[in-house]
């Protein structure tokens, strides 16, 4: 059996930044395991720009952002294995993996960082009626086909879902000569960034149909058309509103789900709101010594935040290895209330805090002129003004650890105070 101080599962931006940070904090014996042929994760197929504005103050493409971290990892001589799939992890931190060179390998680790990312929801997850012809892809699969394999997925396209990947693909397909007929979105607002709506749809005159959904797919071998219907306030299709589109391809951009089969095998507790592990101030899961970061914890829209979260997990794992965090002390829960969908971390051990504590959250609906409020026990201790809040955009609230150490609350809760709006772009 191989033995490492730290094993990182997943070589995407989260895994890379976590491994680099752990090394910077003194961990020598690190192994990164990646099932793909190369490091970089999903960023290698996200060839568009817009990454790194927060961290590098410049606009990088996905591969450029990944390359910077890959270079740093190589310079630090951190060990990694690509084309290596992790099959199982146990509560006692034994990892089973497989690759062509070594066959089946067993590794024991003092600490583990989970950085497996997320996967896309598929048609099965949303149940569209109709036939099952070829030509229905998730937006991410289409992205991989076009940007990595160099294979065009179709000529006349309808996209269901206005998440960022769908918007990015609408532009990408148009640039490659396809006609994108429409992007249909079930909700009355888009979950994508405003910037993507402008630069990917408006720039190319692609219609965004809010409060619409695909109600039928036609075609025997290949898609020949789809039906799009308007939906009512309860998101039910309105009879008589059907419109037919002749297309050869339907892309689904209907959300991402954290990839947590391995976490479940290790008996790690998941948060039903995020679909990812419940974590504490050090990004440690409910199993001692197993940490998590990036999209495996919750779906991020900015990779910059993935990197920051991963650095926290890397530093946390280093502290754990060097026994610099106190494990067996009660944790204070951080509870989402009115208007807040979820918060990361879900709990904190106040004695382990130092410097700032960043809380990441998503709201439940669109707000204008709102405040994000933090309550410690019964008292509101912080209010952050936000002219605009949307479920599509992750928010961050920064708390001062010293204040937490002084007031030592039993619970912390977050709520939104503001006007709800249902505006549409």
């Amino acid at each position: 059996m191989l033995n490492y101080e730290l094993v990182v599962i997943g070589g995407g931006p989260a895994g890379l930044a976590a491994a680099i940070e752990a090394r910077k904090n003194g961990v020598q014996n690190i192994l990164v395991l990646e099932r793909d042929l190369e490091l970089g994760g999903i960023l290698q197929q996200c060839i568009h720009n817009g990454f790194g504005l927060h961290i590098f103050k410049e606009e990088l493409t996905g591969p450029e952002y990944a390359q910077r971290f890959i270079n740093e990892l190589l310079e630090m001589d951190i060990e990694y294995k690509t084309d290596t799939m992790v099959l199982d992890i146990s509560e006692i931190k034994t990892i089973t993996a497989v690759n062509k060179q070594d066959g089946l390998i067993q590794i024991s680790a003092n600490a583990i960082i989970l950085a497996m990312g997320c996967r896309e929801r598929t048609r099965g997850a949303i149940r569209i009626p109709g036939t099952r012809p070829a030509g229905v892809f998730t937006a991410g699969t289409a992205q991989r086909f076009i940007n990595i394999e160099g294979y065009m997925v179709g000529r006349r396209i309808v996209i269901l879902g206005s998440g960022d990947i769908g918007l990015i693909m609408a532009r990408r397909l148009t640039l490659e000569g396809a006609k994108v007929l429409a992007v249909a979105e079930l909700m009355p607002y888009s979950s994508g960034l405003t910037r993507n709506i402008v630069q990917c749809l408006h720039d190319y005159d692609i219609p965004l149909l809010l409060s619409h959904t695909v109600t039928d797919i036609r075609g025997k071998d290949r898609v020949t058309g789809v039906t799009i219907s308007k939906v009512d306030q309860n998101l039910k299709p309105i009879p008589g509103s059907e419109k037919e589109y002749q297309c050869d391809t339907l892309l689904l951009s209907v959300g991402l789900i954290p990839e947590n089969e391995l976490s479940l095998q290790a008996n790690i507790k998941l948060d039903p709101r995020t679909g990812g592990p419940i974590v504490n101030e050090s990004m440690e899961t409910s199993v001692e010594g197993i940490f998590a970061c990036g999209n495996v914890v919750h779906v991020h829209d900015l990779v910059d935040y993935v990197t920051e979260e991963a650095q926290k997990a890397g530093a946390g794992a280093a502290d754990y290895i060097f026994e610099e965090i106190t494990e067996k002390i009660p944790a204070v829960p951080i509870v989402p209330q009115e208007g807040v969908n979820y918060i990361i971390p879900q709990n904190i051990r106040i004695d382990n805090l130092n410097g700032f504590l960043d809380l990441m959250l998503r709201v439940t609906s669109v707000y204008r002129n709102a405040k994000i409020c933090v309550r410690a026990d019964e008292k509101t201790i912080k209010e952050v003004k936000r002219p605009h809040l949307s479920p599509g955009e992750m928010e961050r609230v920064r708390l001062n650890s010293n204040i937490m150490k002084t007031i030592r609350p039993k619970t912390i809760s977050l709520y939104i105070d503001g006007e709800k709006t249902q505006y549409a772009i």
Partner: protein
Amino acid sequence: MEKKRNMQSKELICTACPIGCRLTVFQDEKSENWFRVEGNSCKRGINYAIAEMTDPRRILTSTVKVTNSHYKRLPVRTREAIPKHLIFSCMNEINRIEVITPVRMGDILIDNIASSGIPLIASRNLE
């Protein structure tokens, strides 16, 4: 008497920050910049609107064919933003070239794409 003015206007969404103010831009010779902007919540909105009306630019990203590697495509970008109206001329040039590996991130692949004065560069290393 007030002269009849050309009141051509255009609706825009400001993308300079995530708030996304809905802007209306009026052509107006009397204004300092020939344009009058409404709906912005801060000054950046005015600059955004004027840039969009006079010289809208975008960074263009795409891929080019790779001939001698097990990778089939190399991701590329324009080093800086190019005028928006040149996007499809750039795509024509991008689709005509093929690269031979190894390539380094930042290598120039086309010096002056679509006569924009801006180079097309590789956005990753490829062995």
